[in-house]
Every structure is written in C-alpha cells, then in structure tokens.
C-alpha cells in the first residue's frame, strides 16, 4: 500500500433532516484508482464534496496529505472535475485554451499573472488527454466526451497528485466511454496520479480501477476490485437497499 493521501475518519453528514453519510472510514493511498459506486442518493457526490472541503462534515475528520482539510492550502495538488461540468453553459464564449489555462488559477495565486510558459503547459495538458488539436476550438462546440477531456486537462495543468471526478461519463456517448476510462488508466499508471471517481458505470470502469468502495450512506465494501466477489448477499442487500441476486456473467470485475 502506498502513502495514504486521503484519510476519512468517522465522517457523518446530514442535510437538514436527512442523513446522507454515517461513520465513513476510508483511506485512499498514493497510486490507487478508486471507484466509489452506489445507487442514486447514496451520498457519493456528498462524500467527494467533503473530501474537497466544499461541505463541512457534521462529524469526523478529513485529512489531505496528513493535514486537516480546513488547514490544507495546496489545493493545486488535487485536480477536480465536477459533475456540473457536464451541464455547464455551452454558450460560454471561451476557447479550450482559455478553459485549460484557468486550471492554473490557484497555483498562480491572487494578484499574479499566469506564468510565462502557460501556453506550453496548456499544450502538455491537452496532449495528455489527446485534445491538443482542439486548443482553439470553442468549448461549446465540442462533444460531451471531448469537453470532459478538456476539463481533465484543466485539472491536470497544475500537476496534481490526486484527480477527483464526479460522474465523469454523464453526457459521454457509450462508444467513447471506454477510451475515456483507458485515458484515466494511462494517467494513473504512467503519471502516477491517484484517481478517485464516482460513477454508476460499474462495468465500463471495472477494467481500469484498482479499488472499489461500495457506498450507500455507509461504506459496505472497500478493497481491491477483485475482492468484491467476496461480498455476502447480506452486504449486497444492505448496499443496494433491496434484495439482490449475484449473477456471474464473466464481467470485467471478475477478470
């Protein structure tokens, strides 16, 4: 196991009267490619927002690189691709270059201009997601899958250690989903970027990931993807919220 980068200790969160998360304990180590999966309303996006410091947990503690999230200032070490990026205003008059460059905003700091080599950094980031030919295109003219790649390039430009993605393949057509996950896998293996993503796409993502966390208000399983088979029927039922039957169809998870 690599160095722990994200530690969640007894995290609970409540939206007014509704419990969203209860006693979450989770450690994400350097080099992990973790998929957080669970049914709708299971608290997946809430958990990501707590990790990012966008929501304050009602109980528990989040450590990023060993520091409490409230004291963690090196936000550029964490790249984030939000679910909202799928529904951004497509009429926004910005080129791909302008969007990717904006990923340097935190690293550059308030009252400073972008560094002199910003164009080179934009090119590198776009190249790493296979979008270097689209640099002068308007962001709204790209397909959903291409836009998501651009948002990943925006997250990568600050050279982060962790990439966090919230439902990244929503709005991406099915034939491009596979190549999208292949690209994430490449970033994880070749660039040693720890990846945490929330998804419904269990089958599509299963080939790329190393770890799985099954979430439905609580963590029902966390471990290597191949060990997911060991989940008992009771665990599966608790995770899905209703009775389920395991069917072995030689899916990627088992491979």
């Amino acid at each position, binding site marked *: 196991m690599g160095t722990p980068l994200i530690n969640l200790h007894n995290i609970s969160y409540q939206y007014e009267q509704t419990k969203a998360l209860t006693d979450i304990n989770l450690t994400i180590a350097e080099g992990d490619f973790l998929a957080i999966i669970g049914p709708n309303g299971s608290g997946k996006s809430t958990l990501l927002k707590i990790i990012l*410091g*966008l929501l304050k947990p009602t109980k528990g503690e989040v450590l990023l690189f060993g520091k409490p999230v409230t004291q963690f200032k090196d*936000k550029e070490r964490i790249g*984030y691709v*939000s679910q*909202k990026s799928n529904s951004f205003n497509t009429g926004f008059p*910005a080129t791909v270059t302008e969007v990717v460059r904006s990923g340097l*905003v935190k690293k550059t700091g*308030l*009252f400073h201009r972008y560094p002199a080599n910003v164009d080179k950094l934009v090119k590198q980031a776009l190249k790493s997601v296979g979008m270097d030919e689209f640099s002068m295109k308007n962001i709204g003219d790209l397909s959903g899958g291409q836009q998501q790649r651009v948002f990943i390039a925006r997250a990568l430009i600050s050279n982060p250690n962790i990439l966090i993605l919230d439902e990244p393949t929503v709005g991406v057509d099915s034939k491009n989903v596979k190549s999208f996950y292949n690209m994430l896998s490449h970033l994880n293996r070749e660039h040693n970027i720890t990846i945490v993503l929330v998804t419904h796409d269990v089958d599509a993502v299963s080939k790329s990931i190393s770890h799985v966390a099954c979430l439905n208000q609580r963590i029902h399983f966390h471990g290597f993807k191949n060990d997911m088979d060991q989940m008992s029927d009771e665990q599966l039922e608790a995770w899905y919220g209703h009775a389920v039957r395991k069917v072995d169809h030689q899916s990627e998870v088992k491979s």
Partner: protein
Amino acid sequence: MIESIFQYEFLQNAFASGLIIGFIAPLLGVFIVVRRLSLIADALSHVTLAGIAGSLYLSQSIGALALLNPLYLGIVASVTGSLFIERLRRLYKHYEELAIPIIMSAGLGFGAIFISLAEGFSSDLFSYLFGSVSAVSRQDLWIIIGIALIVIIFLSLFFKELFVLSFDEEYAKASGLPAKWIHVLFMIVTALVIAGSMRIVGILLVSSLMTLPVAAAMRISKSFKQAILLSVIFGELSVVIGLVSAFYLDLAPGGTIVVTSIIILLLTIFSKKIGSKGAVSG
C-alpha cells in the same frame, strides 16, 4: 460637433464620461452576462433611483444639502442594494432570483416616495432617468474617472479568478478561491458602474449598456478575449453615435445610445445568419 466639444465644457464632460462609460460598462458587463446576473444590474439601477430621488428631495428640503451631488447618494444606495441582494440570495438559497424583484420593488418604492415628497418630476430627475448631454458636470466626470480606475484595478487583480468563477463556480470553490469575497467585491464594483453610468445613459437604461454590446459580441466571438474586445468596441460605438445623434436631434442620450446598441445587436444577428447560410450554400 468636434469644434463644439472643444468649445463647450458640458460637451467635453459628456463626451469624456461617455467614452469612459462605453469602456467600463461593457467590460464589466461581459462578466455580468456570462454569470447570468443581467437582471441584478437592472435591480441595482432601480435602487440607484431611490438614492438619486432621496438626494434631490433632501437638497430641496434641507438648505445645507442644496449643493450635494445626487450621484453620491445614488452610489451609496446602489452599493447598499448590491450587499442586500447578496444577503437575500443567501437567505433564499433555493430561490436566489427572488432577491431581484425584492430589491427592485424596494428601489422603485422608495424612489416613488421621494419623488412624491419632492412634488413630482423635475427636469433634473428626468435627466437622471434617461441621461443627458448637458447635465454632466466636471464633478460628475471626476467621479466617473474614479469609478473607472476602481474597475480597471479590480479587473486587473481578479481577472483570472472572475473567469473561473464565471465559467464554473463549483470548480472555483474546490480550487480554494475566496469565491464569496470576490463575488461581493464584484457586486460592489457593478453597483459603482451602474451609479456612474446613469448620468449619460440614465437609470432606466443603464443596464442595457452593460448587456446589449455583450449580447452582440457573444454572437460572433470565438473566445473570451474576443468577447471582451468586441463588447468594448460595440459599447464605444453605441456611446459615440448615441451622443452625437442626441446632441444634433435634441434627444435623451440614453435612448439614442440604447437604440444604437440594438441596431448593432441586430446587425451581428443578421451577419451571423448570412454567414452561416453562405457557409451552407458554399
């Protein structure tokens, strides 16, 4: 008119203020439009009306305030209104847009009361509503220059942060940007520009100078940089053509400036349509 500009101080004031407003209003307007805050600009202009009307009433009833420039109270009202809008948007988290009609009604309500107390419309108030070529004083011009400097400094310092906030607010917050404070500053600067612009365009038309040139620019821009550049060019064109025609035709400049902006907007819409038809047939 060129000779007249050099000859008459009021024309120098009007023209210089117009050129400054034609630059800063669309410049800030780009951020207002892409952040979908156009109606907030309208609400703030109505709050400014309350400040102006209040000042005109006070100057009528209190002798010591007779020489008070109404722009000062207009600025105070506009900035206060912007802070109240922010407060209300947080209070009605799930119905943020409610802040706009609340503040707009409050502005118009207070404005109507002060106008009634001041016993109806004076020609001065009319010039605040629709702008005036002759009413811009040297003191107004200095205030507008001051506001322009604040806008330029603010945008130079926070341009990249404002871009991120406008494009993807959640990403901006996740990146650790002080989104709340930048937004509050942005609202205050917007309030200042609205108060500063009204001498030329008038309270009722001020938001149009922040939105119409931007709407035209967005039809044909390929990048954010281009959208800003074209917005400023269209803003300046509207102000110059509007002021010249207002002077020669003896019309309210607010009207002529806005109608010029509308013509530019229509031209961009048609030119894009013709361009895309040409591309299809070609």
